[in-house]
């Protein structure tokens, strides 16, 4: 069995107790997506302002456990200011960190440069707690919905 410290790193507890980017944005102009974790009842809403090039602002609100809330906080920090392509790259790296493939299924470990990840690296321990993976991915999957939506709009605009 894994120790609690593997799961509840300092950074996680800090983001849990002092959440970043919490709140809502006005929709529209902001894009909103909602996510549920049917297993535990956790709920999240993600709001994104996008200027056609970058994610200029991002907020989240919801209810959840320390893992799910801190993951949302870490995620919003990680993608704020990024382009869609960069955000997708971050999502991909995060999934690898949790030993998930792009579909979110369990996969073999892939080498990742933890230093490049910054604070996100704190979520690595979650991979050892299968029941908590869904907590950590909730915010990310919800954010992915918005990214997909923005991609569609961009495609549409280019048509």
């Amino acid at each position, binding site marked *: *069995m894994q*120790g*609690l410290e593997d*799961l*509840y790193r300092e950074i996680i*507890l800090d983001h849990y107790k002092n959440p970043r980017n919490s709140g809502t944005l006005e929709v529209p102009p902001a894009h909103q997506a909602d996510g549920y974790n049917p*297993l*535990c*009842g*956790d*709920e999240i809403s993600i709001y994104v302002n996008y200027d056609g090039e970058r994610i200029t602002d991002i907020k989240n609100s919801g*209810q*959840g*456990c*320390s*893992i*799910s*809330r801190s993951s949302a906080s870490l995620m919003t920090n990680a993608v704020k200011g990024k382009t869609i392509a960069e955000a997708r790259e971050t999502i991909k790296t995060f999934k690898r960190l949790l030993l998930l493939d792009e579909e979110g299924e369990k996969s073999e470990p892939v080498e990742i440069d933890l230093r490049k990840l910054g604070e996100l690296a704190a979520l690595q321990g979650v991979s050892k*707690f299968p029941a*908590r993976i869904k*907590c950590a991915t909730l915010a990310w999957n919800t954010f992915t919905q918005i990214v997909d939506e923005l991609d569609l709009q961009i495609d549409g605009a280019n048509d």
Partner: protein
Amino acid sequence: MTEVLIDNHIDVAKVRSDFPIFANNPGLHYLDSGASSQRPSMVLEAMENYYRFHHANVHRGVYRLAEEATELYESARERIGRFIGATHPGRETIFSKNSTEALNLVANSLGRGFLRQGDKVVITKMEHHANIVPWQMLAQYIGIQVEFIDVDDEGELIIDDLERIVDGAKVVSLTLTSNVLGTVTPFTGIAQVAKAAGAIVVGDASQFVPHRQIDVKSIGADLIAFTGHKMFGPTGIGVLWGRSELLDQMPPFLGGGDMISDVRLDGFVANELPYKFEAGTPPIAEAIGLGAAVDYMNSIGMDAIESHDREISRLAYEKVKGAFGDEIKIFGPSDPSKRSGCLSFELEGVHPHDVAQVLDQNLVNVRAGHHCAKPLMRHLGVAATARASFHIYNDEADVDALVDALKETRNFFI
């Protein structure tokens, strides 16, 4: 470490020795029987014995193995039917795969035979999803109206106004014990009023049958559902009991082998009870296992089981409340004598998921989540609770372990 639960009713140490999971997981404090109980070895042996000596498909075989299998299967039905007080145990005891399927059977069969657009079905806000979603599906497909009996701050149903609520209802369907609050509902009283209003009364006894003697004849229900795995039986089996006069009128639900008496190209004729509602090869080993579980409960005694349930529910409430006071919110009746089976709570400042995680490190197993009762959760204003639930193999040492682990949790997060 702590004094042992004074309980003359049940020899918990002896009971624990009947359940192999405890010998195989030393130090385990299993407090999740509300989700699924453990199995005594007699239940496992009954199924093993069946598979190793007597297995064949039931009902249609002329040879000895098939007769033995049929006899074991039907004898389990009889014993389970008698255990719940059925008038015609052999006809009124229908095997399903779990409570959920039993309740879906009820909703679908009534939906096909009895309910029309606009008809009113009354349930409660403390129902498990198994007794909500099937009715919502009927609302979607045939346009029935689902109405909810409300819940007060003590976790009790608000029934001052019951006559009005059930007025004109075609079906009233409710739980006998809440799987979140531990509330035992005034089922018989509600059933009387509902019947007087002309409704069919359905009881979800999933959490009741494991802890309390039920007598289906006298509680005023027309239909009762429960599930094997919460009462020491295997997974893969549930029971629907019904008054045979009503079951006879209800159209079948699943179609296939065994549930027919004839099939032609242009239609089928349904079989008699109970087979009409058992399509396909039934859960044979599972029924035999549930029969053994009922024998086991009888050998302990339903009186003793109920007394133990009352005592440990009270003890858990008092010890947890005593240790944490206002730092903890316990859902459900504050009168511990009104509680059965479980203790749902919220430790201030700590999410239930995190509570369960830290408890697990201390080998204390509780469930965290919405317990398949999201409407109730919203009513309580929470997304999730932590729930400790009990059975006859739990004692005061488990409660103390819970309290100790909760203290550690608090220290970790706050």
